[in-house]
């Protein structure tokens, strides 16, 4: 770690190549309330891993620890380690802006910025460039087209890049929010119930998109929707009261859960 910690920015090293996230003994407190208890988790690179569990079990907290967005709250205390590609993100030398460039986040409610579609996509790029040196027109067009193609929006939106992001349909908005992350080349995408504000058709479209992005990106997705976890993830993690109860590949978790509590939750006996 010392070698990596001495680096000024956050540059992922290829340590354990198959693990994108390696969490060890992670404890997290909101003030006096302990929200995560000794969480150990290994997230496979390039796969979609879903976090399931009843409300308040710590899924979102865990997700938000990975890009350190929890820290904004001020009263959060964390112990343990979260390694992304071998580097501890809790290390004081980590530049949060670089971390968040590598780790994109998608929210429950689509939150496109009040800018044109084009500017939404370019926002991330601009944030990381010096002022007055935005990507030029040609470069910008290329970035926008590439990102929108990746999220299957290009054909729908190529003639309306000047429309406001907030005027699109919710499904398009959520896809735009994903597209917005891609130009800065993140390696990990965190998604906090990305489909819960969408109608069934939108949910299906966004799930398809997420499925298509796997491999290129490691995806960690929080969901309340059992069917979604089953359809759209390769590995599944069941959490309860701040602890990880079970972690296995999705098919076997839903077919024969190893733990009684997992079984009870999956069968809908509580949650």
């Amino acid at each position, binding site marked *: 770690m010392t070698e990596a910690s001495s680096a000024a920015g956050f540059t992922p090293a290829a340590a354990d190549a198959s693990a994108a996230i390696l969490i060890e003994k992670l404890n997290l407190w909101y003030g006096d309330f302990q929200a995560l208890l000794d969480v150990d988790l290994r997230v496979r690179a390039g796969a979609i891993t879903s976090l399931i569990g009843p409300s308040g079990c710590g899924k979102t907290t865990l997700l938000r620890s990975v890009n350190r*967005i929890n820290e904004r709250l*001020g009263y959060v205390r964390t112990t343990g380690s979260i390694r992304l590609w071998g580097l501890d993100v809790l290390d004081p030398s980590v530049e949060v802006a670089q971390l968040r460039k590598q780790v994109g986040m998608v*929210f429950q409610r689509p939150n496109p*910025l*009040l800018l044109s579609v084009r500017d939404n996509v370019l926002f991330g790029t601009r*944030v990381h460039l010096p002022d007055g040196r935005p990507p030029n027109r040609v470069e910008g067009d290329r970035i926008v087209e590439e990102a929108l193609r990746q999220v299957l929006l290009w054909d729908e939106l190529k003639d309306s890049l000047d429309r406001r992001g907030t*005027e699109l349909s919710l499904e398009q908005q959520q896809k735009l929010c994903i597209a917005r992350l891609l130009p800065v080349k993140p390696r990990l995408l965190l998604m906090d119930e990305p489909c819960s504000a969408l109608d069934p058709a939108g949910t299906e479209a966004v799930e398809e998109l997420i499925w298509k992005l796997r491999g290129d990106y490691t995806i960690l997705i929080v969901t309340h929707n059992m069917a979604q976890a089953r359809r759209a993830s390769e590995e599944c993690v069941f959490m309860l009261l701040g602890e990880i109860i079970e972690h296995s590949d999705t098919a076997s978790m839903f077919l024969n859960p190893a733990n009684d509590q997992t079984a009870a939750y999956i069968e809908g006996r509580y949650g």
Partner: protein
Amino acid sequence: MFEATVQNRRNRKVEGLFRLLFLWMTCMLILPVALILGVLVYRGGPAISWEFLFTQPLNNMTAGGILPALVGTVWLVVVALIASVPVGVAAALYLSEYAPDNRLTRAINLAIINLAGVPSIVHALFGLGAFVIFFRFGTSILAASLTLAVMTLPVVIVATRESLQTVPLAFREACWNMGATRWQTIRKIVLPNAISGILTGVILEVSRTSGETAPIMFTGAAFFLPFLPQGVLDQTMAMSLHLFVISTQVPDVPEHMPFGVALVLISMVLAMNGISIAFRVYLRGRKKW
């Protein structure tokens, strides 16, 4: 089955009563405004003319126009704005976007509310002590405007903070999660979306400032000064004080003159409020979330 019971009829009667009461109170609210405007237009209207607006007062202020007061008020308001808007907006940005929610922040918020509650005559004395005497600005536009600025600072801060807080948190989160700093977030997302509210607050402040009398009385406004100020260290006449002076301190002022001054003053205020509302409507039409 569907006939009204006694209780239904009683409820309906009470309902009607309260509706009437609230309507009556609303009319009571509008009535004074309408009356004031009516009286001012009726009695001050005849005084208004190009000459009245654009010439010097003559004959011990019993004749002529109000130009020095009109220009003086503009000076006072503009300088006060230049002093208070940057400070107020910056303070509101800190309080809303950076400050952690702790005891100090809460104390500052409380201080701002208290500052808004300080009577204007107290501000006047503060301005006299601080700007006129201690900082040796003398009785001048600068001293008077700074006093006005201190007095209206809470309005700017509160209006700015409120409009900053109407920008959804989701926008900020989206930015922070892409690695944007607070300042990048403020400049690119928060300010562009809050600007309409901030401007509205500023314009309201302008209209409030232009009518204030007490804070400028000791600090920079002159009783009678029949020429235009040349710089911020000059004294000046002002509309509000001029109105006070010709209504109470000068004998033999023709009756229509004070009403004319009041009409001009209130028109200035209403015009600025009108601009503010039009502006808000325009900017609101453009944003959607």
